[in-house]
């Protein structure tokens, strides 16, 4: 949408802005393209289904995929109820009193804390102090740590989603004699669900991409986890360890490809579901 005929300085400026904007696309293509170019050849069914050998420099990554999925599902099933619950409380039950201000402030601060600090905390609290319950380095410890990390993301996006539900829906429901929870459960949440799902997906993405905090809490075993109290290793961790401990870049890049594909798949499914829901509501 060009508003005015660009002339002289205008032309140069708009050219520069355009270049800047498209360079983000270029950077993305270089990064993803390079990773795929380096990694794709190493991927085979064997690689996906075999167990790693020699610190992962040989063999496959099956237990790592299992570990990643286990970890992602566990994390999200802990973080979702808490995050969405908190968002509901903040949006629907409070009227911006001091307490909400404190909670919001806390959430803000939490969002800014670097993941390595979460790692230190997760190690000291979940791994060491609560060892009796979490069994030390384990999926539980890692997922709880990750939950703390992604909570702000889920709370914030869910809050935004709840905010966009027109207050006329709430008023209509209440004026029909529904109580507050009925109103939330039957009208507000279903309307907000696409936004909330987006938040959850962002959360999963962040959880899967995390490495630093997990190095200190998840254990990093190369065996497949059999319960939530076993240790595990995620693709991100594996990629880091293989690249740095063994120097086998083929495996590292192949793992990176799998990681990227996994993130794509999750996003794709999520968008599909969200679109379905939205379409259903508008039909």
């Amino acid at each position, binding site marked *: 949408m060009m508003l005015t005929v660009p002339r002289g300085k205008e032309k140069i400026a708009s050219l520069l802005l355009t270049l800047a904007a498209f360079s983000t696309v270029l950077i993305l293509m270089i990064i993803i393209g390079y990773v795929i170019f380096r990694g794709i050849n190493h991927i085979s069914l064997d690689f996906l289904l075999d167990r790693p050998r020699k610190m992962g420099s040989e063999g496959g990554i099956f237990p790592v995929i299992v570990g990643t999925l286990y970890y992602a599902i566990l994390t999200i099933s802990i973080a979702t109820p808490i995050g969405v619950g908190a968002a509901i409380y903040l949006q629907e039950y409070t*009227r911006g009193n001091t307490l909400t201000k404190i909670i919001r402030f806390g959430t803000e601060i939490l969002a800014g804390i670097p993941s390595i600090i979460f790692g230190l905390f997760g190690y000291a609290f979940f791994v060491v102090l609560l060892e009796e319950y979490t069994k030390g380095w384990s999926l539980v410890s890692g997922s709880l740590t990750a939950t703390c990390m992604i909570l702000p993301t889920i709370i914030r996006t869910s809050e935004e989603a709840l905010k966009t539900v027109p207050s006329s829906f709430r008023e209509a429901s209440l004026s*029909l004699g529904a109580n507050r929870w009925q109103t939330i459960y039957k009208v507000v949440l279903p309307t907000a669900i696409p936004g909330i799902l987006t938040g959850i997906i962002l959360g999963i993405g962040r959880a899967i991409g995390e490495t630093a905090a997990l190095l200190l809490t998840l254990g990093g075993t190369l065996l497949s986890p059999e319960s939530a109290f076993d240790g595990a290793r995620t693709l991100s961790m594996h990629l880091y360890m293989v690249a740095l401990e063994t120097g086998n870049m083929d495996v590292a890049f192949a793992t990176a490809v799998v990681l990227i594909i996994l993130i794509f798949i999750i996003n794709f499914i999520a968008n599909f579901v969200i679109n379905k829901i939205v379409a259903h509501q508008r039909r």
Partner: protein
Amino acid sequence: MKVKLSAQNLNLHYGSFQALKEINIDIKEKEITAFIGPSGCGKSTFLRSLNRMNDLIKGVTIDGNVLIDNQDIYSSKIDVVELRKKVGMVFQSPNPFPMSIYDNVAYGPRVHGNKNKRKLNEIVEKSLKQAALWDEVKDNLNKSALSLSGGQQQRLCIARVLAVEPEVLLMDEPTSALDPISTLRVEELVQKLKKDYTIVIVTHNMQQAARVSDVTAFFLTGEIIEYDITENIFTKPKDQRTEDYITGRFG
């Protein structure tokens, strides 16, 4: 006729701003009462204080009484949920829920514990008929309510309220978002409903007030300036300000 609703010395503040000043009014059963007045004069605010919808807004303080069937609705003994069941409300712009037509109408009965499928079907049909929408939607009850036209949506909202079987119907500019034809249909509907319900309607449109209501209250900056049978208000207003307003000299 019996007095259904009555406000006594009602004052309402939003924070420090006084939106209603010493409102006194008796609203009679099975009559249509219209509230008119320039924008911001407190019509909606007053309407919303009749079913405690203002409870939702931060910083609202109220003194004085609102009685329904001689019971103070602001007393702590009142169950707000029951009150709102009894005093239904239709809003300025149609606000059907983003679900099917059927579910919209069944919403009220369901939250009040009615789970019987047959019974619900009956209620939905009856309410949609009352709201003069049945014929237009009966083959598409599972369609999303959002796919209806504005006028249909507003009638759906009316059906939705009727399904709860309220005694009083509060309508806040129910036609202001509608085209003239839809407006007409809603006005007809209101007239029809009058025999079963006590109706209070807020409108910006003086012609509308004149057409549909039995009594009219004229609001100005939070006060009721004049309250009389509609004909009197429009033909021989007692207060100069009322006259100025209805002749379009300000507002």
